[in-house]
């Protein structure tokens, strides 16, 4: 019995909930109706209907084609105010075989009807009747059709014109007819030109985005990054060494790159120099290889480090030389038929020239940090027991200080970047809390987060709130976030150095939190470096992806001016974010078997990616790249609305000038290109997958 009643009461409740849900839904839509200003009156309005009909009619009559026309003219004279003597107005001479017109009457007042009759015009021509007052300012009156016999008749009314006096007015008729074949109109030519620009805009943006997104996608792939764990000590040392390496690379390797560029600009040196460098490197490497050092010994390690340093120098030098040669070739080609190519090569060369010092610094940073880590690693092993934690704390202080200094530098750029230091403080505090919690509850290396999930969560939220509040007050962040001003310029003296108080305080917090974390973690415990990189990359990609390319376009137009280049940059940035995410999902979907097998052979992580991952992701990557190009073509048709070049710019101009027939051509072109590309990319994708 109970069983029977239970469902009915439950059923009633469910029915009630359903009714409530429907009511809520209706209310929601009613609100939406109001917010979006849906108005049926507007659609019924007579004048609006007329204008929309006109605009649509013109949009649907695009002036794609044009045809040359011949024309002939015939005049008649008209007097405003008939002469007192009633004499007819003297008319121009009629030549044999030429068209002529008759008007009746030949004089009158304004608004009088005048019949215009034409004879001997070109058969089936268009006749344009114009009124030319004595001051010569012609005004169109009416357009009519000439019949097959060259005859027409039409009526005009005398316009109200000021002045004129005793002089006659002229009624002119132009007979006009098409000759030759129809050809593309001027508008169409411009539209095609702009369309080509648009397609290339999309192509450039996609091409430039692909390599960057390709690299990023591995950092945003959970399955790859989860494996990347390093002892905390190694991570901290690598992090501390990064800026040192950056400075060293900039200082020492940078000039080598610059030298390469200089040599490259003198073609012969540019080829000979890197060739010698490479041969020399090969020789040294071979000589070193025959030295017969045992793998794992100090000598072997030193040789490896030395060779790597040399290799970086050679690569940067060669890269610089290639850039230099590019500039040289570009200069030579500039004045020839291949000037486009020359300009392209020149720009690439200049790009290398501009980025060589950054590349050198980056290479230096990575090299120093990896070499430093591998050198120190041996030493770190000997710190056991309390020393483990003391060294950890020291490294933690240094890393925390460095990290927060970097955040403070970013926060000094724009007020709302001031959220970044706060966020990092909160994350650090929560990590420290996690470590303390594990220590207190005795949770070891095993993840026992499930045991007291609620307590843990409550503690985390509490610590996050407290940390945020404290950091907000300590860094005086109201100034940034509420007032929208940059951090105060006040300085704090630390010994001989003078640092902005804001930066100093940020560093202080970093030192404390980093120190606590380092102390608790020690240097031997594994640090999930990969997941840190993964989360950072994902966050940046997601943030970038949420900004529409049109908005990015506005910023880039301010930076590089109105034109397609701004559009390329905007679409590129958005494509990097979008492709980065799509690509990384493909990496996450691979069959883990092959990469596991490659890893088991003793391959490095990079080799594992090249041999176990990349072959599996090539087809989906190509498919997604096509898809993105497709999207970019669509986007580039409207990126011009914010000044980003391409056909959108033209379209917007014509719409603003109310030239809907011309706008119609642009719309037609967009429709054709988009649908062709849609079809092409779909069929290519189908073939790839």
């Amino acid at each position, binding site marked *: 019995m109970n069983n029977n009643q239970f469902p009915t009461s439950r059923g009633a409740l469910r029915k009630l909930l359903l009714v409530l849900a429907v009511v809520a839904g209706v209310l929601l839509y009613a609100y939406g109706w109001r917010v979006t200003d849906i108005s049926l009156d507007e659609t019924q309005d007579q004048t609006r209907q007329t204008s929309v009909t006109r605009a649509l009619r013109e949009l649907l009559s695009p002036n794609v084609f044009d045809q040359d026309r011949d024309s002939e003219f015939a005049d008649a004279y008209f007097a405003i105010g008939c002469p007192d003597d009633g004499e007819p107005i003297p008319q121009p001479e009629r030549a044999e075989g030429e068209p002529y017109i008759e008007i009746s009457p030949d004089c009158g007042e304004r608004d009088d009807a005048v019949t215009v009759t034409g004879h001997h015009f070109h058969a089936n021509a268009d006749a344009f009747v114009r009124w030319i007052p004595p001051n010569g300012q012609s005004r169109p009156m009416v357009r009519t059709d000439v019949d097959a016999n060259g005859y027409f008749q039409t009526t005009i009314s005398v316009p109200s014109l000021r002045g004129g006096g005793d002089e006659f007015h002229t009624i002119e008729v132009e007979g006009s007819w098409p000759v030759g074949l129809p050809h593309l109109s001027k508008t169409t030519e411009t539209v095609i030109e702009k369309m080509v620009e648009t397609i290339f805009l999309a192509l450039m943006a996609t091409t430039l985005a692909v390599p960057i997104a390709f690299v990023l996608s591995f950092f945003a792939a959970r399955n790859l990054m989860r494996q990347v764990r390093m002892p905390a000590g190694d991570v901290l040392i690598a992090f501390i060494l990064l800026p040192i390496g950056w400075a060293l690379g900039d200082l020492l390797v940078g000039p080598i790159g610059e030298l390469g560029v200089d040599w490259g600009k003198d073609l012969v040196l540019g080829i000979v120099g890197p060739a010698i460098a490479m041969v020399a490197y090969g020789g040294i490497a071979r000589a070193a290889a025959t030295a017969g050092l045992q793998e794992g010994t100090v000598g072997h390690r030193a040789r490896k480090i030395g060779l790597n340093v040399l290799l970086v120098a050679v690569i940067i030098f060669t890269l610089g030389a290639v850039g230099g040669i590019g500039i040289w070739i570009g200069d030579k080609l500039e004045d020839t038929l291949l000037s486009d190519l020359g300009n392209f090569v020149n720009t690439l060369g200049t790009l290398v020239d501009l980025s060589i010092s950054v590349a050198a610094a980056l290479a230096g940073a990575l090299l120093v940090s990896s070499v430093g880590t591998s050198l120190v690693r041996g030493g770190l092993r000997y710190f056991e027991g309390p020393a483990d934690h003391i060294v950890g704390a020291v490294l933690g202080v240094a890393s925390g200080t460095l990290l927060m200094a970097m955040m403070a530098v970013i926060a000094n750029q724009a007020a709302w970047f001031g959220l970044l230091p706060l966020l990092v403080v909160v994350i650090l505090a929560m990590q420290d809390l996690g470590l303390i919690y594990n220590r207190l509850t005795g949770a070891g*290396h095993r993840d026992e987060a499930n045991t007291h999930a609620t307590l843990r969560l409550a503690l985390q939220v509490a610590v996050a709130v407290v940390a945020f509040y404290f950091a907000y007050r300590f860094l005086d962040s109201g100034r940034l976030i509420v007032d929208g001003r940059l951090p105060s310029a006040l300085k704090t003296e630390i010994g001989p150095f003078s640092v902005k108080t804001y930066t100093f305080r940020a560093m202080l917090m970093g030192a404390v939190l980093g120190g606590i974390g380092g102390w608790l973690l020690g240097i031997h415990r594994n640090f999930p470096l990969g997941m840190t990189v993964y989360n950072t990359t994902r966050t940046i990609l997601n943030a970038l992806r949420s900004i529409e390319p049109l908005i990015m376009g506005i910023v880039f137009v301010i930076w590089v001016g109105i034109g397609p280049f701004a559009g390329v940059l905007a679409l590129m940035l958005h494509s990097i974010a979008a492709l980065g995410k799509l690509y990384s999902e493909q990496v996450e979907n691979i069959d883990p078997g092959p990469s596991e097998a490659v890893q088991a052979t*003793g391959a490095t992580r*990079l*080799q594992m990616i090249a041999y176990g991952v990349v072959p599996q992701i090539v087809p989906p990557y190509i498919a997604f790249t096509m898809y993105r190009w497709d999207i970019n073509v669509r986007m580039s048709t409207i990126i011009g609305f914010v000044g980003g070049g391409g056909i959108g710019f033209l379209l917007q101009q014509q719409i603003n000038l109310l030239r809907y027939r011309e706008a119609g051509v642009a719309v037609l072109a967009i429709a054709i290109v988009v649908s062709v590309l849609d079809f092409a990319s779909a069929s290519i994708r189908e073939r790839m997958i």
Partner: protein
Amino acid sequence: MLKIEHLTKVYENGVVALRDISFEVPDGQFVVVIGLSGSGKSTLLRCINRLIDPTEGRIIWNGIDITAANDEELRLIRRRIGMIFQQFNLVKRSKVITNVLAGRLGYTNPMWSLINRFSPHDRQMALAKLERVGIREKAFTRADELSGGQQQRVGIARALMQDPELMLADEPVASLDPATSHSVMKYLELLNKEDGITILCSLHFLSLARAYADRIIALKDGLLEFDGDPADIDEQRFKDIYGEDAVRVEIA
């Protein structure tokens, strides 16, 4: 000499895959690990080359503590330990020769290998290894065009590129038919007898294990249930390992 000491693996979700396993394998032995699915065979093999990090215990190989090795040391250890897999784990879209050459990655300069450049010596070696497993003529076909047995032989050739001293075989014949199974096991036996490679192979079927093993190790729920001579597994032992309801299935 491979020494496993008190090896325990607890996965993050709390599953205990191995409980305090200890045994020693002298060089040149053909050891077969048997047990039901989920008894910890795969975990055991993967702990040895640290595709899975053990929770506790040590693995000592030729005097080196594998469990304490850092990334670089681990790489040097791994390249002397070959491994073949139930699903063959070939890169299906790549050519056979590329798959075999991948076995040599631990020995090649990382920079060159990234642009798919291997020394002529390595290429010759790859062809020789394919010759050895009898599919030299398939070197330049795509891996996914091969039959299962052929794919597993590519897997063996890949492992041989490492000049391994120890070969881990994770249910190498579980995806193959009985006849092909024997042919693959024969190759493993050949490597064991001719090259003196120590083999640690997990299998489902006791009959196969008996035919090839010098020694059988049986796991049950992560515990070492049996360690000894194949001939010592009688009806009672069999039921201990596979459960009371198990019936022997012979594989011809």
